[in-house]
């Protein structure tokens, strides 16, 4: 895993010192809130409904046990004993005091962490596949490229005042688990006929109030051109992106208003000017950074394990966990394990300080000290020996993170919503909790199969509702919470934006409406193997509409 070099360490320390001084000047009255706000946002510090909120970067969702223990320590010492994993693979603390934040940043710096690029109109923390470096379907590990992008984009002076924020995601596998097509730049690693590594490049995807699927601008961008091409895109965006209206300032609007062909020509023209310059990636540099992500030594083992099979036969909860929470590993005898941060009726993405400590211990004991945070708000142990699964599962049960529900109806993405967020128009978490309780039995979830519900508490769509198989958007209508339902969204390699099914539902009605949709699906699917999304794509919205609102 990547280690800071002396350059990283020095700029993170500098930034921490700077922020300490900025907080001092703010409290002394030398900086007004208007002057201070952009500075605190550059360090991940927001002011929410009840308190400040600190968003800590977890670059491409990768961390080790030492870092996880530090997060637990911060939750315990400076917050209220918990943290919240976000849809950008980061973690948020909901109750820090302004006066404590410089100290928190110092503590984070001790374990090579910080809150840079978690806010503001800059290139944000790059996200990636949470099974990176482990998945059987992977072309190559995307994290070295994510790291190269991080080094290039961190505090990039030219791109520190973009028209709006800018998000990059990268996947190394054809099965996209990083939602690359709904990012400002989406990258998918591929190999060409000569076995060379390159990228499919998408531009202009995004959610928010104007959801759009990214447009493909390159079928194969050679590895060496990654930074020059990214810089070309950013330059075109920085020059032409709208600054007159913050709701029209993302690159997706530029793509839409300019037209793909013209914009592509602008990008290519800019690229030609710089492609042979300093940004050309030398092969030895890529290989050097790749070495930081060298996989742990994994002995090839048997693809099945007797102890696992014996336990599977005798323990239904374990069987359910195996069925849903494992992802095939490229090394036989290993698997990637999803630790569900979605207990039935619980708060999606919340982890207590004690749970974080347990997770750190388990990573050391069973996972070669590697951890990942998924954009679906779960925690992953990427390299677990099959034989260790029974022992690991027992410890997960004790820590209440053993729900075998990854990818199922209770594995809900939800933004913090109006329980915390100053922008929210309705609550998200309580809706997620009620849906989770409604469908929470093992049999019911398993019968329904893969179904991704995503809930946002306002049109900014942090809960990714547009790409939920069922999406729920919380709004306010006449002073009451009110929920709009979309169907047919998806964030994978066949990405699509969900369609609004009809008029919205009150908070009391919305869970019943979801159940109606689920029952309708169960009634019309061709068999257990046809997922909700497949069925929806086959039959369209009519049967669902009719079930919800009656025949037209």
């Amino acid at each position: 895993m990547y280690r800071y070099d002396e350059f990283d360490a020095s700029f993170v320390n500098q930034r921490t010192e700077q922020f300490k001084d900025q907080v001092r000047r703010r409290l002394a009255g030398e900086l007004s809130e208007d002057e201070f706000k952009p500075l605190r946002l550059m360090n991940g510090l927001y002011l929410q409904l009840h308190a400040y909120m600190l968003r800590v970067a977890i670059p491409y969702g990768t961390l080790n046990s030492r870092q996880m223990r530090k997060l637990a320590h911060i939750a315990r010492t400076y917050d209220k004993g918990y943290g919240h994993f976000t849809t950008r693979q980061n973690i948020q603390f909901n109750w820090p005091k302004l006066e404590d934040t410089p100290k928190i940043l110092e503590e984070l710096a001790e374990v090579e962490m910080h809150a840079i690029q978690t806010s503001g109109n800059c290139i944000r923390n790059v996200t990636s596949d949470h099974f990176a470096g482990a998945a059987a379907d992977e072309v190559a590990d995307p994290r070295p490229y994510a790291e190269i992008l991080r080094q290039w984009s961190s505090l990039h002076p030219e791109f520190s005042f973009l028209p709006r924020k800018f998000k990059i995601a990268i996947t190394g596998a054809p099965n996209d688990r990083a939602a690359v097509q709904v990012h400002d730049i989406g990258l998918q690693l591929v190999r060409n006929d000569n076995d060379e590594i390159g990228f499919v490049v998408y531009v202009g995807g995004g959610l928010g109030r104007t959801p759009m699927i990214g447009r493909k601008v390159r079928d194969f961008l050679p590895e060496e051109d990654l930074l020059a091409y990214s810089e070309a895109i950013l330059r075109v965006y920085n020059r032409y992106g709208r600054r007159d209206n913050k709701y029209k300032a993302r690159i997706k609007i530029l793509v839409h208003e300019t037209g793909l062909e013209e914009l592509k020509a602008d990008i290519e023209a800019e690229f030609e000017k710089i492609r042979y310059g300093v940004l050309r990636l030398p092969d030895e540099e890529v290989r050097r950074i790749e070495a930081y992500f060298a996989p742990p030594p994994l002995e090839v083992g048997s693809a099945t394990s007797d102890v696992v099979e014996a336990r599977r036969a005798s323990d239904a909860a374990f069987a359910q966990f195996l069925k849903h929470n494992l992802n095939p590993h490229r090394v036989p005898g290993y698997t990637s394990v999803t630790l569900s941060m979605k207990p039935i009726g619980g708060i999606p993405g919340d982890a207590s300080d004690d749970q974080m400590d347990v997770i750190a211990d388990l990573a050391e004991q069973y996972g070669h000290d590697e951890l990942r945070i998924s954009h679906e708000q779960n925690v992953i142990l990427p390299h677990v020996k099959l034989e260790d699964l029974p022992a690991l599962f027992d410890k997960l049960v004790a820590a209440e993170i053993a729900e075998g529900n990854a990818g199922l109806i209770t594995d809900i993405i939800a933004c913090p919503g109006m329980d915390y967020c100053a922008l929210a128009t309705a609550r998200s978490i309580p809706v997620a909790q009620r849906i989770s309780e409604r469908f929470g039995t093992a049999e019911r979830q398993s019968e329904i199969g893969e179904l991704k519900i995503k809930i946002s508490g306002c049109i900014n769509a942090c809960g990714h509702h547009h790409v939920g198989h069922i999406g729920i958007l919380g709004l306010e209508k006449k002073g009451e919470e009110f929920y709009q339902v979309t169907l047919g969204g998806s964030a994978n390699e066949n990405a699509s934006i969900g369609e609004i099914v009809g008029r919205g539902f009150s908070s009391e009605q919305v869970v019943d409406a979801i159940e109606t949709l689920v029952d309708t699906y169960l009634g019309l699917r061709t068999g257990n193997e046809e997922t909700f999304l497949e069925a929806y794509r086959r039959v369209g919205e009519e049967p669902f509409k009719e079930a919800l609102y009656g025949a037209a």
Partner: protein
Amino acid sequence: MKVITANRLLNGDVVWLGENQNWVERVTLAKVFEGKDAVASGLEVGATAEKNQEVVGVYEMDVTIEDGVIHPVRLREKIRAAGPTTHPEFGKQAQAVSV
């Protein structure tokens, strides 16, 4: 009927403008302002407090009085006055004083 609210600069706590230009921790202790002019004078007090690094994000919000007790009108403000509905153990609702 309005009250003036903000967050304390130092710790982010939700506060309301009370009597004697004090910032209070309970909406029930807030000073109620009726009429445009009264609200404007309340906001002025808020602006001064902002300049003095006491609070940030000053604004006015609607309230009603039921049985002599101040209640926020909007759900957002009800949640600010109480704490996250998902965490009854945190926020003002967790403190042993009537909300």
